[in-house]
């Protein structure tokens, strides 16, 4: 009898551990990866020929990064690995992929495990459409993957543990970091301590980072309200203005801003596979519904890693392994119950920590209410907060997909990845309704822009 066909999407921590677990059970999964190399975003590998050591690239996480990369290398001859391949649609039992932007293929599956990861979560601020404003993840990728800083004088603004991590990586690499401007008040961190204590090692690493930043002369302000990013349309970013926790206005001159408010799950494949979603009240984002092992609401579709909920790299490795065991169990393979129980326990601990992080570094949704009318919300289509509010008050566009149809918010090149959450908050505040009533932008195929030639070729296959 032919082997069941299992497809894993994403060669980050979740995808690699998932594929590894499937191989250990005697399967030969297909592993689809959009990038050139494995590792995902967090353990992103530098290009061949670069010479920096693991410790320089990944700091305290060097051993974990190296272990994941070595595991992948051992795995590679035992799987059907497809790098530079975008999974752009899911229809019943079939994954649609395109390799190198041109070669399309449809792949039937018995089980699909989407380990699609996350992107930065963004709250707009006036001027964030100026050249030189990058996402927090972008600043880290520039350094990790290309040994570059995003500018000569860099400000880190937003909230979350990644803000401090990337800022300290910049300092260590010799970049000029002027300030870390955190929207979360320090008191929140103290209140979140009981939950954060679920992972004391991570908690301590965070405290060490902050101390090191201050020691390096970086101004660290907590409880700030971003007011605007200054600059001109031609020159780009020239400065940042915030209000600090005591109500004082602080001005910084800089040529680059790295902006990020923790992460949002990449859920388009789950959406296209018609998985059910639930509103996660703690993080104020819609997430696909999964059971404890990663089964979605659709038979044969499994979700693991940050694409299902934001647990970070360690959580992703555990979730990838557990989802693979769930696949194996559903396909009738014997699976070690004790291993599943241990992985579930690990994930419970990670989830307690996740809730602690949300308490300590909350998504500042209230900023959406005070965002000036002139501030751009959707960078792709240049749609302002004022235009969104008009759609609400004059056209009754209070459900996000209707708001999109009326205003084009989220209709552009990034397909709402970077404005979707904030646009929903602006609409909710303007309409005076709870955020969950506004809903979420529906995922559409293709999940990223494709060449028309590639799409035509696919129609021919079907």
């Amino acid at each position, binding site marked *: 009898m032919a082997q069941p066909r299992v497809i894993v999407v994403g060669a980050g921590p979740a995808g690699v551990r998932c594929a590894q677990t499937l191989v250990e059970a005697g399967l030969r999964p297909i592993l689809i990866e*959009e*990038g*050139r190399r494995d590792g995902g*975003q967090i353990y992103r590998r*530098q*290009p*061949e*020929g*670069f*010479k*920096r050591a693991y410790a320089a690239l990944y700091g305290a996480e060097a051993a974990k990064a190296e272990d994941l990369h070595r595991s992948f290398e051992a795995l590679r001859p035992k799987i059907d690995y497809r790098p530079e391949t975008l999974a752009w649609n899911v229809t019943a039992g079939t994954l649609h992929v395109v390799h190198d932007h041109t070669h399309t293929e449809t792949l039937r599956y018995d089980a699909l495990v989407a380990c699609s990861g996350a*992107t*930065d979560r963004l709250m707009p601020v006036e001027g964030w*459409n*100026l*050249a*030189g*404003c*990058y*996402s927090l*993840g*972008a600043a880290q*990728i*520039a*350094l990790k*993957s*290309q*040994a*570059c*800083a*995003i*500018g*000569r004088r860099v400000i880190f603004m937003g909230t979350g543990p990644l803000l401090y991590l990337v800022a300290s990586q910049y300092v260590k*690499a*010799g*970049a000029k970091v002027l300030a870390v401007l955190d929207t979360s008040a320090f008191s929140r961190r103290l209140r979140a301590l009981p939950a954060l204590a679920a992972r004391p090692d991570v908690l301590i690493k965070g405290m060490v980072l902050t101390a090191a930043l201050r020691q390096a002369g970086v101004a660290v302000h907590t409880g700030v309200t971003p007011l605007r990013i200054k600059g*001109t*349309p*031609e*020159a*780009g970013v020239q400065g940042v203005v915030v209000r600090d926790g005591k109500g004082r206005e602080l001005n910084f001159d800089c*040529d*680059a801003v790295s902006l990020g408010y923790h992460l949002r799950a*990449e859920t388009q494949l789950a959406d296209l596979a018609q998985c059910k979603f639930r509103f996660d009240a703690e993080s104020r984002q819609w997430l696909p519904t999964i059971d404890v092992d990663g089964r979605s609401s659709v038979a044969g579709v499994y979700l693991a890693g940050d694409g299902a909920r934001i647990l970070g790299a360690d959580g992703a490795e555990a979730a990838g392994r557990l989802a693979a065991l769930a696949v194996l169990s559903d396909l009738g393979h014997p699976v070690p119950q004790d291993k599943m129980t241990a992985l579930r326990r690990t994930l419970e601990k990670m989830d307690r920590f996740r809730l602690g992080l949300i308490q300590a570094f909350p998504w500042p949704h209230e900023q959406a209410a005070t965002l000036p009318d002139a501030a*751009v919300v959707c*960078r*792709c*289509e*240049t749609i302002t907060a004022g235009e969104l509010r008009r759609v609400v008050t004059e056209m009754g566009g209070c459900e996000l997909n209707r708001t999109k149809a009326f205003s084009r918010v989220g209709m552009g*090149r*990034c397909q709402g*990845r*970077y404005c979707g959450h904030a646009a929903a908050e602006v609409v909710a505040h303007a309409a005076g309704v709870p955020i969950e009533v506004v809903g979420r932008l529906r995922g559409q195929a293709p999940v*990223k*822009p494709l060449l028309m030639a590639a799409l035509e070729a696919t129609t021919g296959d079907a």
Partner: protein
Amino acid sequence: MNAGRFVRLAETARASVQLQANGRTISALEGDTLMVALLGSLGHLRHSEFGDGVRSGFCLMGACQDCWVWTEDGERLRACTTAVREGLRIVTNPPEVSWPNPA
């Protein structure tokens, strides 16, 4: 302005690669993404279609599509996920497209 937006902090011993940006020869390093190659010398990658100024990319992970540039032949490239190649001829404004007229 000859100063670019990005600053190299390490890994500068790589072989150099020459390419053209808007008709001017610029120097980059083997292993650079096209984005790093361009922003080592330029301040931006393209102009917003909606008149709010220049853009220089945003996410660097192939998700936002803000870093599209074009070859002189009209091929669109996502600068953050494309490796630089010797002799590339890049423009930061989309080349004129002549639409076929079937009438």
